[in-house]
């Protein structure tokens, strides 16, 4: 039994059949973390004792016949989920000492699952590579000279490297789907509001989406079936429908007769690397050969998605970050005036966070250019309409999860705009709120290259069914781990 490659459901079966104890499972993952984390830097905090105590408790529940879907199954949470009594930093010096007195809803729902630790990330989830962490970058488990993608860098790398069977992340502009593509994992961003945002430290509230990293699409479905619910503590959380039996329906996915749309605008993108396009075309061949149908579709306003996103997201960022005043929120600073206290406290924000706050201040200020926010909000409507129209023609839309193979560490460090443009395949889905999942595709230059499967708003099940059908057909060979 190789725990490092087992799926969530295999672990459930083995635990319930008493083939293995919950403590053994947790210890095995903790040992893998101890061995590989010094190299990967996928964790900000490892919570070994906490995890062992939860595992011991879980075993008692299993022995008493009280096991739930997640009892005794370890997981990892991105370090922006509030965890009671456990350091929660959002990878920022501003929160370097923050110990929340409460749990995020998703953490509370997993109370009998041992949490192995808090995963590294870009500061406040702002970044595409994982390099904007106050705790250093996360390395790619397949090539240590490359990034694992961001912002949920540690959540992705920990699943890829067998440090955990699954992890929690967040996706505001691609922060789950891009790193999943860079690490040969399944990264699922459900419809906006599917998992509660309560206790997830906010970046851009109308876009922030909680989601999961797993080894298989079926595991993503298992999590959706058992973990998603409407939360009275999050006014934007949605009622999820028809979840029972979802995992089974995803398991039976069959690609024959399914229609996949490929957006013309994405395939014509100049910035797409040839290796990525080649890997994607290879995937298309396999889908067609297995009986899936490929049709060209159009998302006419997708080319403006980055422009709109980088107006709307920073606008919301500047509002959300305003709370870090060094008094009520954020690490305490001293000063001779209220302005000085705030300035000193906020000096701890990293360069990317400061940049986005400045842009948001510009786009929300009457003195500067407030009109941009309104224009971008209109473009957002057009993008929503584009997806809705396209989804009337197909079962799912597919495209690469990034126009680039995993970057070398430091490759884009000096050009923030170039970095932002790399989000072109992921931000439109956040603007539209639609579900999208990255699955491992054929490799590009021997490195992971994700394929994204996008569904209609609120149709998470159909999205996962289409992704599972593709997953069966692609059967993508994993690259060799470097740890």
């Amino acid at each position, binding site marked *: 039994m190789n725990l490092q490659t087992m799926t969530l459901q295999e672990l459930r079966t083995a635990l319930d059949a008493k083939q293995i104890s919950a403590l053994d499972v947790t210890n095995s993952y903790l040992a893998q973390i101890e061995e590989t984390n010094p190299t990967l830097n996928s964790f900000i905090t490892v919570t070994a004792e906490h995890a062992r105590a939860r595992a011991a408790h879980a075993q008692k529940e299993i022995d008493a016949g009280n096991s739930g879907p997640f009892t005794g199954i370890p997981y990892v949470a991105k370090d922006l989920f509030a965890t009671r009594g456990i350091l929660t930093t959002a990878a920022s010096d501003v929160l370097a000492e923050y110990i929340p007195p409460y749990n995020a809803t998703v953490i509370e729902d997993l109370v009998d699952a041992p949490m192995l630790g808090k995963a590294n990330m870009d500061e406040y989830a702002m970044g595409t590579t994982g390099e904007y962490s106050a705790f250093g970058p996360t390395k790619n488990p397949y090539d240590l000279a490359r990034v694992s993608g961001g912002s949920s860098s540690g959540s992705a790398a920990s699943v890829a490297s067998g440090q955990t069977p699954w992890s929690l992340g967040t996706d505001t502009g691609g922060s789950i789907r891009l790193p999943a593509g860079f690490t040969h994992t399944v990264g699922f961003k459900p419809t906006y509001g599917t998992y509660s945002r309560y206790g997830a430290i906010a970046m851009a509230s109308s876009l922030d989406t909680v989601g999961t990293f797993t080894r298989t699409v079926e595991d993503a479905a298992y999590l959706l079936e058992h973990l998603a619910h409407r939360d009275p503590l999050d006014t934007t959380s949605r009622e999820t429908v028809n979840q029972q039996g979802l995992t089974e329906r995803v398991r039976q996915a069959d690609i024959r007769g399914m229609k996949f749309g490929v957006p013309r605008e994405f395939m014509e993108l100049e910035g797409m690397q040839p290796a990525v396009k080649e890997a994607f075309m290879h995937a298309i061949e396999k889908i067609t050969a297995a009986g899936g149908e490929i049709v060209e579709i159009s998302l006419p306003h997708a080319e403006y998605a980055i422009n709109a996103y980088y107006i709307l997201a920073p606008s919301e960022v500047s509002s959300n970050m305003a709370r870090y005043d060094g008094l009520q929120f954020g690490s305490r600073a001293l000063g001779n005036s209220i302005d000085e206290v705030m300035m000193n406290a906020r000096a701890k924000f990293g360069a990317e966070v400061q940049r986005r706050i400045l842009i948001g201040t510009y786009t929300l200020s009457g003195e500067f250019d407030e009109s941009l926010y309104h224009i971008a909000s*209109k473009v957002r409507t057009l993008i929503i309409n584009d997806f809705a129209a396209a989804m009337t023609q197909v079962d799912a839309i597919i495209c690469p999860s990034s126009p680039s193979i995993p970057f070398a560490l430091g490759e884009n460090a000096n050009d923030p705009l170039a970095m932002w443009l790399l989000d072109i395949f992921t931000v439109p889905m956040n603007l539209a709120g639609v579900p999208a999942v990255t699955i491992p595709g054929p490799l590009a230059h021997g490195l992971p290259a994700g394929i994204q499967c996008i569904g209609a708003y609120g149709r998470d099940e159909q999205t996962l069914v289409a992704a599972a059908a593709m997953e069966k057909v692609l059967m993508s060979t994993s690259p060799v781990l470097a740890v």
Partner: protein
Amino acid sequence: MNISAEEIKKLASLAKLHLEESAIPKLTVDLNNIFHHIEVLKTLDLGEVPETNAIHHQSTVLRADESSMTFAKEDMLPTMPRTDEAGNLIVNAVFQDSDETTHAV
């Protein structure tokens, strides 16, 4: 439009951010690149397109307006910058110059 170094300083002061003087030239270049990129949207004819500020779905979740959530003192203390042995929050004195002078509340 082009934004000047002076305007960036104004933005920073509105955002309560202290920028190092040495960081401003590069920031000016980066922000201008970004603004030129996003301003492309101004060329679109958007007419009567309605704005989307939030993804709309079911009705808002409402709860009764009652105070219900409370926190135990021992849970809240670790979130405080400084506390004394008795579990009191230590704050800086308001009317004295020295940072050393503190009061427990």
